[in-house]
Protein backbone atom coordinates (compact mmCIF):
# COMPACT_ATOMS: atom_id res chain seq x y z
CA UNK A 1 0.00 0.00 0.00
CA UNK A 2 1.42 3.32 -1.07
CA UNK A 3 0.99 6.51 0.92
CA UNK A 4 -1.74 8.89 -0.17
CA UNK A 5 0.31 12.06 -0.67
CA UNK A 6 -2.56 14.45 -0.12
CA UNK A 7 -2.95 13.19 3.45
CA UNK A 8 0.72 12.35 3.80
CA UNK A 9 2.28 15.83 3.49
CA UNK A 10 0.64 17.06 6.70
CA UNK A 11 2.10 13.99 8.42
CA UNK A 12 5.58 14.91 7.16
CA UNK A 13 5.06 18.43 8.41
CA UNK A 14 3.90 17.23 11.84
CA UNK A 15 6.77 14.78 12.12
CA UNK A 16 9.29 17.45 11.19
CA UNK A 17 7.77 19.72 13.82
CA UNK A 18 8.05 16.95 16.40
CA UNK A 19 11.69 16.35 15.52
CA UNK A 20 12.55 20.04 15.75
CA UNK A 21 10.72 20.22 19.09
CA UNK A 22 12.54 17.17 20.51
CA UNK A 23 15.91 18.37 19.32
CA UNK A 24 15.56 21.95 20.49
CA UNK A 25 14.19 21.08 23.94
CA UNK A 26 16.95 18.51 24.36
CA UNK A 27 19.58 20.97 23.20
CA UNK A 28 18.37 23.59 25.68
CA UNK A 29 18.25 21.16 28.59
CA UNK A 30 21.55 19.48 27.80
CA UNK A 31 23.30 22.81 27.25
CA UNK A 32 22.31 23.97 30.71
CA UNK A 33 23.13 20.58 32.25
CA UNK A 34 26.29 20.13 30.21
CA UNK A 35 27.56 23.59 31.12
CA UNK A 36 27.02 22.85 34.80
CA UNK A 37 28.70 19.45 34.64
CA UNK A 38 31.47 20.67 32.31
CA UNK A 39 32.26 23.71 34.47
CA UNK A 40 32.32 21.53 37.57
CA UNK A 41 34.55 19.04 35.82
CA UNK A 42 36.92 21.82 34.77
CA UNK A 43 36.95 23.58 38.11
CA UNK A 44 37.53 20.46 40.19
CA UNK A 45 40.44 19.09 38.19
CA UNK A 46 43.92 19.01 39.71
CA UNK A 47 45.36 22.51 39.67
CA UNK A 48 41.91 23.90 38.78
CA UNK A 49 40.19 26.79 40.46
CA UNK A 50 38.30 24.63 42.99
CA UNK A 51 40.16 21.33 43.03
CA UNK A 52 38.28 18.28 44.33
CA UNK A 53 39.62 14.90 43.41
CA UNK A 54 36.43 13.16 44.54
CA UNK A 55 33.91 15.22 42.54
CA UNK A 56 36.15 15.15 39.49
CA UNK A 57 36.55 11.37 39.62
CA UNK A 58 32.82 10.73 40.09
CA UNK A 59 31.80 12.94 37.18
CA UNK A 60 34.61 11.66 34.98
CA UNK A 61 33.64 8.05 35.61
CA UNK A 62 29.95 8.76 34.99
CA UNK A 63 30.77 10.33 31.64
CA UNK A 64 33.05 7.49 30.68
CA UNK A 65 30.29 4.99 31.46
CA UNK A 66 27.54 6.79 29.59
CA UNK A 67 29.40 8.06 26.54
CA UNK A 68 30.42 4.78 24.90
CA UNK A 69 26.94 3.25 25.21
CA UNK A 70 25.21 3.25 21.79
CA UNK A 71 22.20 5.53 21.92
CA UNK A 72 19.71 2.81 21.00
CA UNK A 73 20.93 0.80 24.03
CA UNK A 74 20.79 3.89 26.25
CA UNK A 75 17.12 4.38 25.37
CA UNK A 76 16.29 0.84 26.35
CA UNK A 77 18.49 0.82 29.45
CA UNK A 78 17.05 4.12 30.63
CA UNK A 79 13.45 3.11 29.86
CA UNK A 80 12.47 2.32 33.46
CA UNK A 81 13.89 5.65 34.61
CA UNK A 82 12.14 7.38 31.71
CA UNK A 83 8.82 5.91 32.79
CA UNK A 84 9.48 7.11 36.33
CA UNK A 85 10.37 10.64 35.27
CA UNK A 86 8.13 11.29 32.26
CA UNK A 87 5.31 8.84 33.09
CA UNK A 88 5.46 7.03 29.76
CA UNK A 89 7.97 5.23 27.59
CA UNK A 90 6.63 6.23 24.17
CA UNK A 91 6.09 9.53 22.42
CA UNK A 92 8.07 12.68 21.93
CA UNK A 93 8.49 13.62 25.58
CA UNK A 94 9.63 10.13 26.47
CA UNK A 95 12.33 10.42 23.79
CA UNK A 96 13.56 13.72 25.18
CA UNK A 97 14.60 12.19 28.49
CA UNK A 98 17.26 9.70 27.34
CA UNK A 99 18.40 12.15 24.66
CA UNK A 100 18.96 14.79 27.34
CA UNK A 101 20.85 12.42 29.62
CA UNK A 102 23.23 11.32 26.90
CA UNK A 103 23.63 14.81 25.39
CA UNK A 104 24.31 16.41 28.77
CA UNK A 105 27.41 14.34 29.26
CA UNK A 106 28.48 14.89 25.68
CA UNK A 107 28.12 18.65 26.12
CA UNK A 108 29.96 18.40 29.45
CA UNK A 109 33.03 16.98 27.68
CA UNK A 110 32.80 19.61 24.95
CA UNK A 111 32.62 22.34 27.59
CA UNK A 112 35.51 20.91 29.58
CA UNK A 113 37.85 20.52 26.62
CA UNK A 114 37.08 24.00 25.28
CA UNK A 115 37.68 25.56 28.69
CA UNK A 116 40.99 23.72 28.91
CA UNK A 117 41.97 25.25 25.59
CA UNK A 118 41.66 28.79 26.99
CA UNK A 119 45.11 30.30 27.40
CA UNK A 120 46.29 30.05 31.02
CA UNK A 121 47.76 33.56 30.71
CA UNK A 122 44.28 35.08 30.52
CA UNK A 123 43.29 33.33 33.73
CA UNK A 124 46.50 34.54 35.32
CA UNK A 125 45.66 38.10 34.26
CA UNK A 126 42.21 37.87 35.85
CA UNK A 127 43.74 36.44 39.03
CA UNK A 128 46.25 39.27 39.12
CA UNK A 129 43.33 41.70 39.10
CA UNK A 130 41.86 40.00 42.14
CA UNK A 131 39.12 37.91 40.50
CA UNK A 132 37.94 34.83 42.42
CA UNK A 133 37.42 31.33 40.98
CA UNK A 134 33.68 31.53 40.28
CA UNK A 135 33.99 34.92 38.64
CA UNK A 136 36.88 33.72 36.49
CA UNK A 137 34.80 30.74 35.36
CA UNK A 138 31.81 32.81 34.37
CA UNK A 139 33.31 36.10 33.19
CA UNK A 140 36.58 34.92 31.67
CA UNK A 141 36.56 31.25 30.76
CA UNK A 142 33.08 30.94 29.28
CA UNK A 143 33.26 34.12 27.17
CA UNK A 144 36.79 33.28 25.99
CA UNK A 145 35.74 29.78 24.97
CA UNK A 146 32.40 30.81 23.47
CA UNK A 147 33.34 30.55 19.79
CA UNK A 148 34.52 26.93 19.89
CA UNK A 149 31.76 26.15 22.38
CA UNK A 150 29.13 27.20 19.84
CA UNK A 151 30.78 24.96 17.24
CA UNK A 152 30.79 22.12 19.77
CA UNK A 153 27.10 22.69 20.48
CA UNK A 154 26.42 22.67 16.74
CA UNK A 155 28.11 19.29 16.55
CA UNK A 156 25.82 18.18 19.39
CA UNK A 157 22.76 19.61 17.60
CA UNK A 158 23.53 17.54 14.52
CA UNK A 159 24.06 14.46 16.70
CA UNK A 160 20.70 15.16 18.35
CA UNK A 161 18.90 15.09 14.99
CA UNK A 162 20.47 11.68 14.53
CA UNK A 163 19.43 10.66 18.07
CA UNK A 164 15.88 11.87 17.48
CA UNK A 165 15.58 9.69 14.41
CA UNK A 166 16.82 6.70 16.38
CA UNK A 167 14.39 7.48 19.18
CA UNK A 168 11.66 7.80 16.54
CA UNK A 169 12.17 4.25 15.37
CA UNK A 170 11.43 2.91 18.84
CA UNK A 171 8.27 4.92 19.39
CA UNK A 172 9.66 8.35 19.97
CA UNK A 173 7.75 10.25 17.31
CA UNK A 174 9.15 12.63 14.73
CA UNK A 175 10.67 11.99 11.32
CA UNK A 176 12.32 8.76 12.49
CA UNK A 177 8.98 7.33 13.47
CA UNK A 178 7.52 8.31 10.10
CA UNK A 179 10.35 6.65 8.23
CA UNK A 180 9.89 3.53 10.33
CA UNK A 181 6.11 3.13 10.18
CA UNK A 182 5.53 4.23 6.59
CA UNK A 183 8.82 3.88 4.79
CA UNK A 184 10.29 0.76 6.30
CA UNK A 185 7.35 -1.35 7.48
CA UNK A 186 5.33 -0.61 4.32
CA UNK A 187 8.27 -0.75 1.92
CA UNK A 188 7.45 2.70 0.57
CA UNK A 189 10.58 4.05 -1.11
CA UNK A 190 9.13 7.50 -1.82
CA UNK A 191 8.39 8.03 1.88
CA UNK A 192 11.91 6.93 2.69
CA UNK A 193 13.35 9.41 0.23
CA UNK A 194 11.24 12.25 1.65
CA UNK A 195 12.24 11.53 5.25
CA UNK A 196 15.90 11.29 4.34
CA UNK A 197 15.66 14.63 2.52
CA UNK A 198 13.96 16.18 5.54
CA UNK A 199 16.75 14.93 7.82
CA UNK A 200 19.43 16.23 5.46
CA UNK A 201 17.70 19.62 5.34
CA UNK A 202 17.51 19.73 9.15
CA UNK A 203 21.19 18.85 9.57
CA UNK A 204 22.23 21.38 6.96
CA UNK A 205 20.26 24.20 8.58
CA UNK A 206 21.61 23.27 12.01
CA UNK A 207 25.19 23.40 10.72
CA UNK A 208 24.56 26.64 8.88
CA UNK A 209 23.05 28.25 11.95
CA UNK A 210 25.92 27.06 14.14
CA UNK A 211 28.54 28.37 11.74
CA UNK A 212 26.73 31.68 11.55
CA UNK A 213 26.53 32.13 15.31
CA UNK A 214 30.10 31.02 15.95
CA UNK A 215 31.38 33.33 13.25
CA UNK A 216 29.52 36.16 14.91
CA UNK A 217 31.07 35.25 18.28
CA UNK A 218 34.57 34.78 16.86
CA UNK A 219 34.20 37.84 14.60
CA UNK A 220 35.71 36.03 11.62
Amino acid at each position, binding site marked *: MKADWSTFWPKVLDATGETVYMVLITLALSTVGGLAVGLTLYATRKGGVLPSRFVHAVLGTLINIIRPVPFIIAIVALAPVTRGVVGTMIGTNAAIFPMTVVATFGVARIVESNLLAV*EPGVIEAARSMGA*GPLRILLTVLVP*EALGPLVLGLTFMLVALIDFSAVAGTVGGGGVGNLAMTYGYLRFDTSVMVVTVLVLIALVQSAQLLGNLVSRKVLRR
Partner: protein
Amino acid sequence: MTAAVELRDVAKEFPGGARAVDGVSLSVEAGTVFGVVGHSGAGKSTLLRLVNGLEEPTSGSVLLDGQDISALGERRLRPLRREIGMIFQQFNLFRSRTVLGNVLYPLRLAGMGRAAARARAEETLEFVGLAGHGGRYPEQLSGGQRQRVGIARALATRPKVLLCDEATSALDPQTTGEVLALLGRVNRELGVTILLITHEMEVVRTLCDRVAVMEDGKVVESGEVYEVFARPRHATTAAFVRSERHSEPDAPLMERLRSRHPGRLVTLPVTDGSPALEGLSELLQLHGVDFALVHGGVGEVRGRPLGSVTLELRGRPAAVEAVVAGLRVPGLAEAGAR
Protein backbone atom coordinates in the same frame (compact mmCIF):
# COMPACT_ATOMS: atom_id res chain seq x y z
CA MET B 1 60.75 54.94 54.88
CA THR B 2 59.22 51.54 54.22
CA ALA B 3 59.85 49.99 50.85
CA ALA B 4 56.94 49.58 48.42
CA VAL B 5 57.97 45.97 47.91
CA GLU B 6 60.33 44.01 50.08
CA LEU B 7 61.37 40.37 49.89
CA ARG B 8 63.08 38.85 52.90
CA ASP B 9 64.97 35.63 52.30
CA VAL B 10 62.16 34.36 50.07
CA ALA B 11 62.27 30.83 48.67
CA LYS B 12 59.82 29.03 46.42
CA GLU B 13 60.05 25.33 45.89
CA PHE B 14 57.71 23.57 43.47
CA PRO B 15 56.47 20.07 44.06
CA GLY B 16 58.97 17.85 42.35
CA GLY B 17 61.87 19.64 43.98
CA ALA B 18 62.59 22.55 41.64
CA ARG B 19 63.80 25.46 43.78
CA ALA B 20 62.79 28.29 41.46
CA VAL B 21 63.54 31.08 43.94
CA ASP B 22 66.23 30.43 46.49
CA GLY B 23 66.72 32.86 49.35
CA VAL B 24 66.10 36.18 47.63
CA SER B 25 66.12 39.44 49.55
CA LEU B 26 65.47 42.71 47.81
CA SER B 27 63.82 46.00 48.46
CA VAL B 28 62.08 48.33 46.00
CA GLU B 29 61.73 51.93 47.15
CA ALA B 30 58.42 53.62 46.41
CA GLY B 31 58.47 55.61 43.19
CA THR B 32 61.47 53.83 41.69
CA VAL B 33 61.91 51.35 38.85
CA PHE B 34 63.57 48.10 39.82
CA GLY B 35 64.72 45.59 37.22
CA VAL B 36 65.51 41.92 37.60
CA VAL B 37 67.53 40.32 34.82
CA GLY B 38 68.49 36.71 34.33
CA HIS B 39 68.58 33.94 31.78
CA SER B 40 65.58 31.76 30.96
CA GLY B 41 64.66 29.59 33.93
CA ALA B 42 66.50 31.76 36.47
CA GLY B 43 63.27 32.15 38.43
CA LYS B 44 62.32 35.69 37.42
CA SER B 45 58.65 35.05 36.68
CA THR B 46 58.25 33.06 39.86
CA LEU B 47 59.81 35.93 41.80
CA LEU B 48 57.36 38.39 40.28
CA ARG B 49 54.37 36.12 40.98
CA LEU B 50 55.38 35.97 44.63
CA VAL B 51 54.95 39.72 44.90
CA ASN B 52 51.21 39.72 44.18
CA GLY B 53 50.64 36.38 45.86
CA LEU B 54 49.98 34.36 42.69
CA GLU B 55 52.55 32.04 44.25
CA GLU B 56 52.88 31.47 47.97
CA PRO B 57 56.47 31.44 49.24
CA THR B 58 57.80 28.19 50.70
CA SER B 59 59.74 30.27 53.21
CA GLY B 60 60.62 33.88 53.88
CA SER B 61 58.29 36.85 53.68
CA VAL B 62 56.93 39.26 51.10
CA LEU B 63 56.06 42.74 52.32
CA LEU B 64 53.99 45.33 50.51
CA ASP B 65 54.22 48.77 52.09
CA GLY B 66 55.46 47.02 55.20
CA GLN B 67 52.52 44.57 55.34
CA ASP B 68 53.44 40.90 55.28
CA ILE B 69 51.30 39.19 52.65
CA SER B 70 53.02 35.81 52.59
CA ALA B 71 50.54 34.11 54.92
CA LEU B 72 47.34 35.95 54.01
CA GLY B 73 45.64 33.26 51.96
CA GLU B 74 43.91 33.61 48.61
CA ARG B 75 40.70 35.25 49.82
CA ARG B 76 42.39 38.10 51.67
CA LEU B 77 44.96 38.56 48.92
CA ARG B 78 42.33 39.36 46.30
CA PRO B 79 41.54 42.93 47.38
CA LEU B 80 45.29 43.58 47.75
CA ARG B 81 45.94 42.50 44.16
CA ARG B 82 43.86 45.45 42.98
CA GLU B 83 46.62 47.68 44.28
CA ILE B 84 49.22 45.88 42.17
CA GLY B 85 48.94 45.96 38.40
CA MET B 86 50.54 43.28 36.26
CA ILE B 87 51.43 43.13 32.58
CA PHE B 88 52.69 40.17 30.58
CA GLN B 89 54.92 39.20 27.70
CA GLN B 90 51.98 37.77 25.73
CA PHE B 91 49.71 40.64 26.86
CA ASN B 92 47.03 38.18 28.06
CA LEU B 93 44.14 40.37 26.93
CA PHE B 94 40.58 39.06 26.95
CA ARG B 95 39.94 38.27 23.30
CA SER B 96 36.22 38.16 23.86
CA ARG B 97 36.15 41.76 25.07
CA THR B 98 36.80 45.04 23.31
CA VAL B 99 39.69 47.26 24.31
CA LEU B 100 37.32 49.24 26.50
CA GLY B 101 35.86 46.00 27.89
CA ASN B 102 39.34 44.84 28.86
CA VAL B 103 40.06 48.05 30.77
CA LEU B 104 36.59 48.03 32.34
CA TYR B 105 37.05 44.52 33.71
CA PRO B 106 39.23 45.32 36.75
CA LEU B 107 37.17 48.43 37.49
CA ARG B 108 33.87 46.54 37.55
CA LEU B 109 35.64 43.84 39.56
CA ALA B 110 36.56 46.46 42.13
CA GLY B 111 32.88 47.34 42.37
CA MET B 112 32.95 50.67 40.54
CA GLY B 113 29.65 51.85 39.06
CA ARG B 114 29.09 51.60 35.32
CA ALA B 115 29.37 55.27 34.46
CA ALA B 116 32.34 55.99 36.72
CA ALA B 117 34.14 52.87 35.45
CA ARG B 118 33.60 53.93 31.87
CA ALA B 119 34.93 57.40 32.51
CA ARG B 120 37.98 56.02 34.29
CA ALA B 121 38.62 53.43 31.55
CA GLU B 122 38.49 56.09 28.85
CA GLU B 123 40.78 58.33 30.85
CA THR B 124 43.28 55.48 31.22
CA LEU B 125 43.10 54.63 27.51
CA GLU B 126 43.84 58.24 26.72
CA PHE B 127 46.88 58.16 28.99
CA VAL B 128 48.33 55.20 27.07
CA GLY B 129 47.59 56.86 23.74
CA LEU B 130 44.65 54.71 22.70
CA ALA B 131 41.82 57.21 22.90
CA GLY B 132 39.24 56.26 20.29
CA HIS B 133 40.34 52.62 20.07
CA GLY B 134 37.98 51.44 22.81
CA GLY B 135 35.58 49.71 20.43
CA ARG B 136 38.18 47.54 18.72
CA TYR B 137 39.09 43.99 19.60
CA PRO B 138 42.60 42.91 20.67
CA GLU B 139 43.24 40.96 17.44
CA GLN B 140 42.69 44.16 15.47
CA LEU B 141 45.63 45.84 17.22
CA SER B 142 49.39 45.72 16.73
CA GLY B 143 51.61 44.18 19.39
CA GLY B 144 52.59 47.55 20.78
CA GLN B 145 48.97 48.67 20.96
CA ARG B 146 48.02 45.42 22.70
CA GLN B 147 50.64 46.00 25.35
CA ARG B 148 49.30 49.54 25.80
CA VAL B 149 45.88 48.01 26.46
CA GLY B 150 47.56 45.67 28.94
CA ILE B 151 49.13 48.67 30.65
CA ALA B 152 45.82 50.57 30.68
CA ARG B 153 44.06 47.53 32.14
CA ALA B 154 46.74 47.18 34.81
CA LEU B 155 46.62 50.88 35.72
CA ALA B 156 42.86 51.38 35.65
CA THR B 157 42.41 50.78 39.37
CA ARG B 158 45.25 53.21 40.18
CA PRO B 159 47.66 50.65 41.66
CA LYS B 160 50.75 51.82 43.51
CA VAL B 161 52.91 49.08 42.05
CA LEU B 162 53.18 47.72 38.51
CA LEU B 163 54.72 44.30 37.86
CA CYS B 164 56.04 43.72 34.34
CA ASP B 165 56.84 40.18 33.19
CA GLU B 166 58.98 40.57 30.05
CA ALA B 167 56.62 43.29 28.91
CA THR B 168 58.56 44.11 25.74
CA SER B 169 60.08 40.74 24.84
CA ALA B 170 57.46 40.02 22.19
CA LEU B 171 57.87 43.41 20.50
CA ASP B 172 60.16 44.73 17.78
CA PRO B 173 62.87 47.29 18.75
CA GLN B 174 60.88 50.35 17.70
CA THR B 175 57.73 49.29 19.51
CA THR B 176 59.82 48.27 22.51
CA GLY B 177 61.09 51.84 22.66
CA GLU B 178 57.55 53.23 22.62
CA VAL B 179 56.34 50.91 25.35
CA LEU B 180 59.41 51.66 27.48
CA ALA B 181 58.78 55.38 27.06
CA LEU B 182 55.19 54.83 28.21
CA LEU B 183 56.36 52.87 31.25
CA GLY B 184 58.74 55.73 32.02
CA ARG B 185 55.76 58.11 32.02
CA VAL B 186 53.82 55.72 34.24
CA ASN B 187 56.65 55.94 36.74
CA ARG B 188 57.32 59.69 36.53
CA GLU B 189 53.85 61.13 35.96
CA LEU B 190 51.78 58.72 38.02
CA GLY B 191 54.42 57.90 40.62
CA VAL B 192 53.86 54.18 40.15
CA THR B 193 56.60 51.94 41.53
CA ILE B 194 57.66 49.47 38.83
CA LEU B 195 59.18 46.04 39.36
CA LEU B 196 60.08 44.51 36.03
CA ILE B 197 61.83 41.39 34.89
CA THR B 198 63.57 41.07 31.57
CA HIS B 199 66.46 39.50 29.77
CA GLU B 200 67.03 42.63 27.68
CA MET B 201 69.64 44.99 29.13
CA GLU B 202 68.21 47.69 26.89
CA VAL B 203 65.15 47.75 29.15
CA VAL B 204 67.26 48.09 32.28
CA ARG B 205 69.45 50.77 30.74
CA THR B 206 66.61 53.03 29.68
CA LEU B 207 64.15 52.49 32.51
CA CYS B 208 65.56 51.17 35.76
CA ASP B 209 67.02 52.90 38.80
CA ARG B 210 68.29 49.69 40.34
CA VAL B 211 68.88 46.22 39.00
CA ALA B 212 69.33 42.74 40.40
CA VAL B 213 70.85 39.87 38.46
CA MET B 214 69.37 36.44 39.03
CA GLU B 215 70.85 33.02 38.42
CA ASP B 216 69.51 29.66 39.54
CA GLY B 217 66.97 31.28 41.81
CA LYS B 218 69.48 33.50 43.58
CA VAL B 219 70.31 37.17 43.26
CA VAL B 220 74.01 37.17 42.41
CA GLU B 221 74.46 40.91 42.14
CA SER B 222 72.38 44.02 42.65
CA GLY B 223 72.85 47.73 42.82
CA GLU B 224 72.35 51.09 41.18
CA VAL B 225 72.10 50.57 37.42
CA TYR B 226 75.11 52.65 36.37
CA GLU B 227 77.36 51.07 38.98
CA VAL B 228 76.37 47.56 37.90
CA PHE B 229 76.88 48.40 34.23
CA ALA B 230 80.20 50.17 34.77
CA ARG B 231 81.69 47.79 37.32
CA PRO B 232 80.02 44.36 37.12
CA ARG B 233 81.40 42.00 39.76
CA HIS B 234 79.76 38.70 38.79
CA ALA B 235 80.51 36.82 35.58
CA THR B 236 76.80 36.60 34.65
CA THR B 237 76.41 40.33 35.12
CA ALA B 238 79.49 41.00 33.02
CA ALA B 239 78.04 38.88 30.23
CA PHE B 240 74.74 40.77 30.40
CA VAL B 241 76.25 44.25 30.36
CA ARG B 242 78.88 43.43 27.75
CA SER B 243 76.78 44.54 24.77
CA GLU B 244 75.78 47.73 26.55
CA ARG B 245 79.39 48.68 27.13
CA HIS B 246 79.97 49.21 23.44
CA SER B 247 81.89 46.12 22.67
CA GLU B 248 85.16 45.66 24.36
CA PRO B 249 86.78 43.46 21.73
CA ASP B 250 86.78 39.75 22.45
CA ALA B 251 89.72 37.48 21.60
CA PRO B 252 88.92 36.75 17.91
CA LEU B 253 88.19 40.41 17.22
CA MET B 254 91.45 41.34 18.95
CA GLU B 255 93.25 38.93 16.60
CA ARG B 256 91.73 40.60 13.56
CA LEU B 257 92.55 44.06 14.90
CA ARG B 258 96.16 43.00 15.46
CA SER B 259 96.48 41.71 11.93
CA ARG B 260 95.27 45.04 10.57
CA HIS B 261 97.07 47.31 13.03
CA PRO B 262 100.76 46.66 13.66
CA GLY B 263 101.04 49.22 16.51
CA ARG B 264 100.41 48.66 20.20
CA LEU B 265 96.67 48.15 20.93
CA VAL B 266 95.16 49.39 24.17
CA THR B 267 91.53 49.21 25.28
CA LEU B 268 90.32 51.94 27.60
CA PRO B 269 87.02 51.56 29.45
CA VAL B 270 85.15 54.83 29.58
CA THR B 271 83.14 55.43 32.72
CA ASP B 272 82.35 58.67 34.49
CA GLY B 273 85.00 57.75 37.05
CA SER B 274 87.76 57.60 34.45
CA PRO B 275 88.35 60.70 32.32
CA ALA B 276 90.48 58.56 30.04
CA LEU B 277 90.27 60.53 26.84
CA GLU B 278 91.23 63.92 28.31
CA GLY B 279 94.25 62.61 30.21
CA LEU B 280 95.22 60.65 27.15
CA SER B 281 95.84 63.50 24.76
CA GLU B 282 98.34 65.15 27.14
CA LEU B 283 100.10 61.86 27.66
CA LEU B 284 100.38 61.29 23.91
CA GLN B 285 101.69 64.79 23.28
CA LEU B 286 104.21 64.49 26.08
CA HIS B 287 105.75 61.37 24.57
CA GLY B 288 105.28 62.24 20.93
CA VAL B 289 103.05 59.24 20.25
CA ASP B 290 100.36 59.17 17.58
CA PHE B 291 97.16 57.12 17.79
CA ALA B 292 94.30 55.72 15.72
CA LEU B 293 90.87 54.79 17.03
CA VAL B 294 90.34 51.21 15.85
CA HIS B 295 87.29 50.00 17.78
CA GLY B 296 84.70 50.87 20.41
CA GLY B 297 82.35 53.65 21.33
CA VAL B 298 80.82 55.53 24.21
CA GLY B 299 77.14 55.51 25.10
CA GLU B 300 75.03 56.79 27.90
CA VAL B 301 73.52 54.89 30.80
CA ARG B 302 71.14 56.92 32.94
CA GLY B 303 72.75 60.12 31.74
CA ARG B 304 76.30 59.03 32.43
CA PRO B 305 78.93 57.98 29.88
CA LEU B 306 79.74 54.32 29.49
CA GLY B 307 81.72 52.48 26.87
CA SER B 308 85.19 51.54 25.80
CA VAL B 309 87.62 52.52 23.07
CA THR B 310 90.47 50.55 21.58
CA LEU B 311 93.41 52.57 20.31
CA GLU B 312 96.42 51.76 18.23
CA LEU B 313 99.50 53.63 19.56
CA ARG B 314 102.16 54.49 17.02
CA GLY B 315 105.63 55.80 17.84
CA ARG B 316 109.02 54.79 19.10
CA PRO B 317 108.71 51.65 21.24
CA ALA B 318 110.09 53.34 24.34
CA ALA B 319 107.66 56.25 23.97
CA VAL B 320 104.70 53.85 23.48
CA GLU B 321 105.77 51.96 26.60
CA ALA B 322 105.86 55.23 28.50
CA VAL B 323 102.33 56.05 27.39
CA VAL B 324 101.08 52.59 28.36
CA ALA B 325 102.78 52.95 31.73
CA GLY B 326 101.23 56.39 32.05
CA LEU B 327 97.79 54.94 31.39
CA ARG B 328 98.16 52.95 34.59
CA VAL B 329 98.03 56.07 36.76
CA PRO B 330 95.10 56.35 39.18
CA GLY B 331 91.92 57.13 37.37
CA LEU B 332 93.09 55.14 34.39
CA ALA B 333 94.18 52.30 36.60
CA GLU B 334 91.86 49.70 35.13
CA ALA B 335 92.64 50.87 31.62
CA GLY B 336 95.08 47.96 31.28
CA ALA B 337 96.93 47.73 28.00
CA ARG B 338 96.22 44.55 26.13
